[in-house]
Each structure stands twice: as C-alpha cells, then as structure tokens.
C-alpha cells in the first residue's frame, strides 16, 4: 500500500515538473490504482483510500491545486514598507508547513518594487521585501538551505500603468518552488 502511495506521489511530482501549466494530476487515478489491485475474490483486507489534494493538504500536488492556499504565491507590501501585513500571515504559515513537510523542496523568493526612482535602489528595496518573507518562513520552521531571497527590483512589474493601484501590485514578494525557477 505504501509503495503505491509513494509511486503515485512520484508520478504526480514528475507530472508537476514536466507539465508546466497543465491540469493538476487527477486524484482519482491513485484511488483507481488501488481498487484495480483488489482481488476479484471476496476479501476482507482493509483498503485505505488515498485522495491526494484533499486529504494531503501539504502534498506536492497541492502547489498546483487552485483550491489549495499553496497556489497563492504573492505577498503585497505598503509603500516604502517591508513589513509582512497580518492578512498574509496565514498564507506564509501554509507555505512554511509545506516546506517543513517537504524538506527536499526549495523556494526562490523574488522581491519587487514599483518603478519610481533608481533601478539599483529599487533592487535593494525588492531585496528587503524578499528578505522579510524569508525571515518569516524561517521563524515558522522552514530551513535556511531551502530558501533563497533575491530581488528583481522594478524590472518585472505585474502592472505597467502609472497609478497607485498599479504600483501596489508591483510592491510584492513572489514565492517560487523547485521546478518553477
């Protein structure tokens, strides 16, 4: 039973790595695989149904499950601020739990700044935001070796209009996992 579980997890992991942007691996496949092995003769052996994505909140597949909080990857900051706001603390908590459970997974945290002012100074501001995310994840149990905080400064804006609502979208930290960067 455990073997099948491991196998399906590995397959899902591979699919996740290869199929960038494809459908999340269907959880039913794992269940079906188990049922196929059920002998046709009457058996009383217990079967534990495994449903990846629901039962396993912090499995690899959850990263691509739009219903999982782990699919949310951005933390937004106030102007000239590097403080992680309370509204993002539960999101960071979920990601920290995932990193603790999946010690082999690494995360690249990319900090961003809005376009006003010097490019190099904005790069430093983005770094401060990425660093705030990294420190929060460490406090929540993630290992230092799993995390790298870098900055893309003002170079990769999510929004290019010159307005406050747009700039607010550009003051952010993005979390990317192994296979995504």
């Amino acid at each position: 039973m455990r073997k099948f579980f491991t196998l399906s997890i590995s397959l899902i992991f591979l699919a996740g790595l290869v199929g960038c942007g494809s459908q999340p691996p269907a959880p039913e496949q794992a269940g079906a695989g188990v049922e196929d092995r059920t002998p046709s003769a009457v058996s009383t052996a217990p079967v534990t149904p495994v449903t990846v994505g629901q039962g396993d909140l912090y499995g690899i597949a959850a990263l691509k499950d739009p219903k999982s909080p782990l699919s949310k990857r951005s933390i937004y900051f106030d102007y000239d601020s590097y403080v992680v706001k309370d509204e993002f603390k539960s999101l960071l908590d979920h990601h920290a739990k995932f990193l603790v459970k999946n010690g082999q997974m690494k995360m690249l945290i990319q900090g961003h700044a809005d376009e006003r002012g010097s490019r190099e100074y904005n790069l430093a501001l983005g770094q401060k935001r990425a660093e705030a995310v990294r420190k929060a994840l460490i406090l929540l149990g993630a290992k230092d070796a799993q995390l790298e905080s870098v900055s893309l400064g003002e170079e990769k804006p999510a929004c290019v209009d010159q307005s406050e609502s747009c700039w607010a979208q550009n003051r952010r930290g993005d979390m990317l996992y192994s296979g995504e960067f």
Partner: protein
Amino acid sequence: MKKLKSLFFVGIFLATAASVSLAQLSIEITGAGAHRIPVAVTDFAGERVISQALTSVVRSDLERSGLFLMVDAAGALLNEGAVPNYPEWKAKGADALAAGSVNVMPDGRYETRFRLHDTQKQAAIAGQALAHNATQIRTTAHRIADIIYEKLTGERGIFSTRIAYVMKSVGRYELQIADADGNGAQVALASKEPIISPAWSPDGGRLAYVSFEAKKPVVYVHDLVTGRRHVAANFKGSNSAPAWSPDGARLAVVLTKNGNSQLYVVNVDGSGVTRLAGSSGIDTEPQFSPDGAFIYFTSDRGGSPQIYRQPVDGGPAQRITFDGSYNVTPRLSPDGKSLAYVSRDSGRFRVTIMDLGTRQTQILTDTAKDESPSFSPNGRMILFATEVGGRGVLAAVSTDGRVKHRLSVQAADVREPAWGPLNK
C-alpha cells in the same frame, strides 16, 4: 541547431560584435552654451569621392557640444595647403576656420588632411593627416572634431568616445554600444531578461553589468571585442551595481549574502570577495572616487536614501547629501571635484550636481524621471536616462545646465546609459 536551442533555453544569446542594430538613435539639440566660439568648417577638397560626407559630421559634433557657433562656409572649397583669405573669414564672423582634403591612396584607402586656422592671429594652429578606409569616415570626422575642440577650448574632445545603454523592446533587452553621437550602434548582448547597470572598464575594453538571465541578478564582465564574458559575482541572493576601481583590477559590487544589500569588493575574475562597509539597512550604488581613495554610495541608514562616502581602506562613513528625502546614484566627475546624482523634489527625479569643495548644489534638468547620470570623460557633459512622452530616452546636459541634447529611438525604450572612457 542544438546549441542554438539550448542557448535560447536559458533565455539569452550573444550577438556577434559586428551586427549593426536597425534601431538607430536620433539626436535632437535642445539647448546651447552662452558663449560660443564662431568657427567655419569648409567642405574638404575631394570629399565628394566618399559617399558619406565627412565635414557634415565634424560640424554636427562641434555644434552638439554647445560650445561652437557654426559659421556658414557653403561654397568654399579650401584644401589644407591653401592660405585662406583671413580678413574675409574674419568678416564672416569666424574666429577659426578648418579646411582640408580627402585623397585616394594607391592602396585604395583614403588620406584625409586638414588644417585649423586662427583668423585673428592669421595663422594655422593645428593640422593632421589621417589614413582610413571607407568604413572609418565617421571615426575620422570625430577625430578631426576632437582636435578642433581641444585646440579651441583647451580641454579634451569626447566625439571619438562610445556610450553603452540598454534598449528594451517587447520581450527583448539589448545591451548596445554606439558612438557618442548615437551612430553605429552594435549589439553586445541580447536577452529576454532584463539587463541593467552597465559600467565601462577604465580601458574601455570591457563592460560589467547585471543580467537577470538566471532569474536573479548576477554580475557579469563582458569583453566587447571577443564577446566572451564571465560571472564576476553570483552569490546566494542578489548581485548588482558593479563599479570598476580606477586601476581596472577590482569591482565594487552589492551582495545580499547576509540578508540586506551591502557593499563588497571582488577581483574582476570574481575571486577575493571582501566586505567593504556595513550597515543594518540598504547600502548600494557604489562608485570609486577617481583617486581610488573613497567609495561613494547610497544608503538608507539615516532613515531615507542619501549619499555617503567612506575611505576604501576603512574609516567612518560621512554623509554627503542633506537636502530632501531622496538622493541616489552618486557619480564622480573625472577630476573628482563634482558629484552628479538624482534627487527627488515634489515627486520629480532630476539630475543634480554638487561642487564637493563648496557643497553648493544645482538641479540641471527640467524633466521628471531622470536616472543613471554618467559623466563624459572630459567632465563637461552628463548623460542620463529620462522619460519623454512616456518613452525612455537618453539625454545629455552640460555641467552648467546650459547645453542640452537628447537621443531617442522609435518604438523602443532606451535606458541605463554609461559614457565610455577616452580612447587611449
């Protein structure tokens, strides 16, 4: 093919040094100096044998500097050996007159000779013969303009120098090198990911810059002739803001190995990383003073980004800027006496200059989104990036704020300029 594919896979390919960019920078003069020297440059005898005019380049170089008033010399054809009618040229208002000739040599190359005359002294004051081929006509013209400029102003001309900048079009970034007048642009590096902060080596042969091709900022050093490049700083975190030491042996860089952006020095090959200065906040945008004794940099250690300097050999940092809440990107003049930087005032970011002796400051521009000031190697002009009509353009302003011109290109953003050194 396979090789090409893998290069594309990492999002980057090196263009050959010979490839010429199609997007040509065009120049527009928007201001001139108060006291201009009236000078006439006649057409050179035999100039018509070359398809590309030579003297028109000399004239536009001199005019763009803002220090010369071009006296009309139309119709006059004078070779370098002829004695000009000095009173006639003086009557036309010319204090100086350049005349010359272009001749085809037996090997098919050209020889351009010219002579510069002083109409007051009624004497020749400079002259030179330059051998060149058909592709070096503009280069020859820039050399002649440099000689005229130096003879009449007493300072080095910068018409033969080159500039580096980044051109951004949809999904493509190009690090380009062009003549100081924006002509003859060549692509040194093309990438799908951003390129920022190009910095010329003191010998003009290499550029250090930051490329994001590895999904994070990494500092590279790039040899322009061979196209070969190597990683100079790629530590955990971000690597940025390279600045050459005056001897060309080391780079000041910003690393985030320990969290925030801090100053370090590395050898150009990436070895021997040492911490330079320390603060609990942001330290960035390092720049060596021309004598190599100080590092100027931007820091938010006082609560807002301001410019500081610190002895390279150790010692306390000293704050340099005090006016306003945002002063960034320090750039020293070649003589080390002035500091150009970007200051924010009422939401406008403008190039400002400070006399380091008196601490007097002057805002030099009337634009609002200035970035990346860079001195010409004679210290007379400052090249910078700004925005006009929603598009990134390069502009230049003289250190007295009077002479202004602009370099722009259709359908692309131009940014991150760096003015190269004098030709040796």
